[in-house]
């Protein structure tokens, strides 16, 4: 006899039972077709054969991207760029595997996935201070941690490892719920990351499963390894640069508009951290574990 509580009890029991079986249903997966193409590749091929969609009434871009051949040679809206990336990413995600941290969901895209060429950044050193051209937000004095905490809305953590020392620049992006970026300039013991002139970049942002989730699209040349940062599970992404976007509260899409090189991503409580460095996995983890 089946559990009578599900028949006679309140909806809560039935809803809980539905949620339990949801992930276990034998949902279809995308198998390569007879022609050897998977769903993502098929979508991408069809989209690439189409003319660029009109951007019409969309909000003008706040800054310009350098378009490549095949993409519109005019400013394109943020929504358009994001949507194009998401279309390709979601197509890939139809058959992708996912792993998650609190506040973070990392997806492994198919081998054919790559961001649109219009998102290629210019590879020139940042004018001004380190990270100044990365659109990380408003600069904040690194000598005033209390002000940084207040702007971020959470206690910003700093590496206590003697190698990096005090950051050379700090930024807060209030449009991303107080996302904080600490930047160290390139020097002898801090080789350049994917960002010219930047030797270390620590990003901290509030996020949890309930408040939104973060998606990372990883191309075929990026390796993702599960690692431990102290007692926390994290992910070390290395190899080819990858593009990052996420959806914030309510599913509103936001993007970081830049490529990311080797990076360590982990979460601790309500805050998610990303540390970009060229120090390799162990060197990066060592610095990550020194956050205080």
């Amino acid at each position, binding site marked *: 006899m089946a559990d009578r509580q599900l028949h006679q009890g309140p909806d809560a029991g039935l809803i809980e039972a539905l949620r339990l079986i949801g992930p276990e249903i034998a949902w279809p997966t995308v198998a390569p077709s007879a022609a050897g193409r998977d769903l993502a590749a098929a979508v991408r091929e069809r989209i690439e054969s*189409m003319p660029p969609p009109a951007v019409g009434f969309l909000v003008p871009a706040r800054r310009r991207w350098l378009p490549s051949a095949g993409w519109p040679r005019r400013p394109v809206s943020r929504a358009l760029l994001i949507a194009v990336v998401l*279309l390709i990413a*979601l197509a890939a995600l139809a058959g992708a595997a996912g792993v998650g941290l609190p506040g973070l969901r990392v997806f492994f895209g198919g081998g054919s996935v790559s961001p649109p060429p219009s998102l290629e950044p210019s590879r020139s050193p940042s004018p001004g201070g380190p990270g100044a051209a990365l659109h990380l937000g408003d600069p904040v004095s690194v000598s005033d941690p209390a002000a940084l905490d207040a702007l971020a809305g959470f206690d910003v953590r700093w590496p206590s490892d003697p190698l990096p020392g005090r950051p050379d620049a700090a930024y807060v992006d209030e449009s991303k719920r107080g996302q904080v970026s600490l930047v160290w300039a390139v020097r002898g013991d801090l080789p350049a990351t994917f960002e010219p002139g930047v030797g270390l970049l620590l990003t901290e942002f509030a996020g949890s499963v309930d408040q939104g989730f973060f998606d990372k699209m990883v191309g075929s040349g990026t390796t993702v390894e599960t690692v431990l940062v102290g007692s926390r599970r994290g992910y070390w992404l290395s190899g080819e640069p990858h593009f990052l976007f996420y959806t914030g509260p309510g599913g509103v899409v936001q993007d970081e508009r830049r490529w990311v090189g080797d990076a360590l991503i982990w979460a601790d409580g309500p805050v998610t951290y990303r540390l970009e460095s060229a120090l390799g996995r162990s060197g990066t983890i060592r610095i990550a574990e020194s956050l205080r």
Partner: protein
Amino acid sequence: MALRTAYLVAPEADAADAVQDAFVKAYAALSRFRDGEPIKPWLLRIVVNEGRNRRRSADRRSGLARRAALVEPRDAVAASPESEVLAAETRDLLFAALGRLRDEDREVIGARYLLDLSEAETAEAIGIRRGTVKSRTSRALARLREAMTDLDRGPVHG
């Protein structure tokens, strides 16, 4: 998520094609996407529309509905440690009952609880008002409970 949504509304054999066509149509319709709006439910709505069209034109049941209707005891879903709190018989009964629901009931329950979409996302994805999601979900749950009771009274038929 897109493929699961298609499986919820489209025949199983058409689900992948529905997703592929939906993404291509979404790309062509980008100018109608409102900046700042959540993109996931917008995309899923296109998937749902594609899936429904294929279900109607093929005059067949959705992949999920068909599979649920064919359920045999203890083969509907694979047990996991989390779901051990639900008896295998109950899981199968619940899944079989889903197969007896009307399409609109299964869609709203599937979107809300199997795909774990929010009310707002469900409203956008299946094309109804948010208030309607609440009322339709409530009625669908009642019908699901009735279907479970009916199935539990007698042998399960495919």
